[in-house]
């Protein structure tokens, strides 16, 4: 299992199998429809939702515009509060820093708060390679880890699993990771939760090192914030002696007051709750309370390059609520694994090709993993125009153009494998700027209509495999208009 998912097939191939997996389809459909309906109700309760959404967008845009300033302020505040700040340009550097910090404690295991950033960099695997075992403590992450699986959703990583599958995973795998599942474990939610609680408790009480991400970092005070539903995060943040937090640089907000917006929009958008059950904040270290040592690893990993792109930078507003996944008709059918990234769904389709570049097959296919229906933009609590960025990235794939890589402007060549499509688009553009040629083509199609095949070869086969083609009419509208003078002449 690799955090970077190298060698993933392109999205259409990955989705091909998912669409045919009826259990997966049913699990995804049930879960996404339940949560999307709940979200709509939770959002409808607030009469100022539109203003909260705009405020969230404005705060994020302002912070991104002055990111350097706020990051320096954050570093000063964290240091003043007794923490240590580390800067990581990419995944490798972040992994090296965390591994070194863990090894320096003399410990060989860590407990983890659910964190997208550490998944993005493949931290668990990097620690494993140095002989350190990382235990996921979020229930869904635990299911994924025990099942040697990949997360399928940002908020609900095990969304693709049903209760029966989870019981089987617990029964078979818990023993090799720690306390085994109780005898005769059934698939009732209460029993599954209790099994996880017992299994995890032993780890919380033993662990000397905790690793977390953060939902927000407050520049003015150097405070980090994690919002969660289960309370296991708070265990990891308070019980260990050493706490290491790995956080993307875009997670910063200037002031405590800014949190008032996001602590309303995030829970309602993600879990459809008015407020999340646990909000933990930590500021450096404190005498006789919580971890004695605190390290903050600030992760770039493609973020400043993304910030340099004036259309694509809005993806950095994302607060990882996953509302866009839950309304996405493509995600609902293809599932999270098809996106080949820890960030699936519509946000993953614009974030991954920006953070990783569009060179790989999977990253070049992600901007096309959307019908551009716009449901994602409609629900996004920070108003990321995901369709706009998707089209922008499609352009990057087929036309190439300027991008920033490691702080340097480079010009990308068009991706290979689009030559036929490009030729067809050029030909269509030519015909559409020469109306007489278009009319001639329409007449030819009309004359030969009786010979048109019901199934067509090449890319068109993808259409006729599942859908019938419309029949070409005997006369185009323009010819009818000309022949009848817009219906005024006889013979209409």
């Amino acid at each position, binding site marked *: 299992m690799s955090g970077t998912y190298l060698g993933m097939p392109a*999205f*259409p191939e990955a*989705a*091909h199998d998912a*669409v*045919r997996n009826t259990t997966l389809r049913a699990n995804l459909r049930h879960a996404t429809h339940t949560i999307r309906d709940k979200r709509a109700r939770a959002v409808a309760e607030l009469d100022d939702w539109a203003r909260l959404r705009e405020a969230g967008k404005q705060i994020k845009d302002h912070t991104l515009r002055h990111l350097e300033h706020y990051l320096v302020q954050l570093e000063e505040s964290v240091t003043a509060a007794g923490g240590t700040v580390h800067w990581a340009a990419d995944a490798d550097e972040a992994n090296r820093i965390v591994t070194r910090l863990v090894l320096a404690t003399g410990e060989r295991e860590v407990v983890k708060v659910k964190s997208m950033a550490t998944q993005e960099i493949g931290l668990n695997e990097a620690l494993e390679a140095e002989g350190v075992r990382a235990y996921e403590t979020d229930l869904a992450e635990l299911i994924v880890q025990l099942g040697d699986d990949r997360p399928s959703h940002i908020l609900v990583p095990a969304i693709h699993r049903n209760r029966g599958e989870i019981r089987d995973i617990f029964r078979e795998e818990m023993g090799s990771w720690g306390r085994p599942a109780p005898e005769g474990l059934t698939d009732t939610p209460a029993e599954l939760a209790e099994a996880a609680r017992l299994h995890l408790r032993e780890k919380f009480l033993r662990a000397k090192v905790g690793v977390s991400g953060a939902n927000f970092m407050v520049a003015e005070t150097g405070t980090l914030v994690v919002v969660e539903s289960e309370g296991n995060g708070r265990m990891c943040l308070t019980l260990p002696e050493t706490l290491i937090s790995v956080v993307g640089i875009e997670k910063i907000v200037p002031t405590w007051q800014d949190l008032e917006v996001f602590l309303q929009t995030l829970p309602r958008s993600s879990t459809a709750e008015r407020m999340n059950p646990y909000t933990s904040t930590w500021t450096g270290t404190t005498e006789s309370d919580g971890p004695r040592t605190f390290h903050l690893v600030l992760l770039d990993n493609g973020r400043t390059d993304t910030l340099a792109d*004036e259309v694509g930078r809005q993806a950095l507003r994302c607060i990882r609520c996953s509302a866009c996944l839950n309304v996405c*008709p*493509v995600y609902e*059918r*293809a599932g999270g694994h098809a996106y080949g990234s820890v960030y699936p769904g519509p946000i993953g389709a614009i974030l991954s090709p920006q953070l990783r570049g569009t060179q790989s097959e999977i990253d070049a296919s992600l*901007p*096309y*993993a*959307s*019908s*551009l*229906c*716009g*449901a994602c*933009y*409609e629900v996004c609590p920070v108003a990321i125009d995901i369709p*706009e960025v998707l*089209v922008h*990235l*499609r*352009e*990057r794939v*087929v*036309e190439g153009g300027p991008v920033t890589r490691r702080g340097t402007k480079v010009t990308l060549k068009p991706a290979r494998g689009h030559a036929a*499509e*490009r030729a067809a*688009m*050029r030909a269509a*553009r030519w015909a*559409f*700027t020469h*109306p007489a040629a*278009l009319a001639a083509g*329409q007449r030819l199609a009309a004359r030969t209509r009786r010979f048109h095949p019901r199934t067509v070869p090449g*890319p*068109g086969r*993808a*259409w006729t*495999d*599942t*859908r*019938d*083609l*419309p029949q070409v*009419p005997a*006369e*185009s*509208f*323009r010819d*009818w*208009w*000309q022949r009848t003078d*817009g*219906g005024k002449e006889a013979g209409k």
Partner: protein
Amino acid sequence: MRVALFLTCVNDTLYPDTGRAVVKLLTRLGVEVDFPAAQTCCGQPHYNTGYRHEAEPLARHYSDVFGPGVASGDYDAIITPSGSCAAMVRELYPRMGERARAEGRGDRLATALAPVIPKTYELTEFLVDVLGVTDVGAFYPHTVTYHPTCHGLRSLGLGDRPTRLLAAVKGLELRELPGAQECCGFGGTFAVKNSDVSAAMGADKVRNAAATGAEVLCAADNSCLMHIGGTMSRLQVGMRPVHIAEILASTEEEPLV
């Protein structure tokens, strides 16, 4: 009132009946309709597939065809029976102008497109907002379910305009479509590039439509209807797709068959 009909390349080539219906409907409502013969395609297939620079000449062509008539006052509006093509002009043409400016190519594209953008209307919004009618005097004695296509729904914000028009049609029984706001899975080149997912979305849409028991699935965009209709035909659900213009054009004297 005199308007220019922007029929769109798909309708012109594959669905001329929709075009004739628009002409018949608008003429009945006292609107004079012209069809500038040099019109072709708004450029949406190019733009949405990532070929923005190929789409630009088509946007210019659109402004060349319709711009002079708008500027001279010859056309009060440009009407199109396609939510997604109207959204292309109104939402994405301004963006194309901005991008050209950002690429250091000046204001020429933005200036050329500016006059046609606010004058372009999707058919149902023109009827309700500009002409101020919801009862267009139509007669269509069938059960109908309405699918609000994504660009009409979310880009243009058509809201309940189409269903208000349909509800006022004599003889028509409107049935609510479960999951109406979900995409049918067409999405232009998406239907071919991600055909498995597209087909799965289309099949779900058709099953939801069939569950209403209606005879007809109606929408304001023939591209979506081509995908839905093609799926209906393959799944043999015994429903037919009909463009809203054809229903609104149907009368007791000249019923749509």
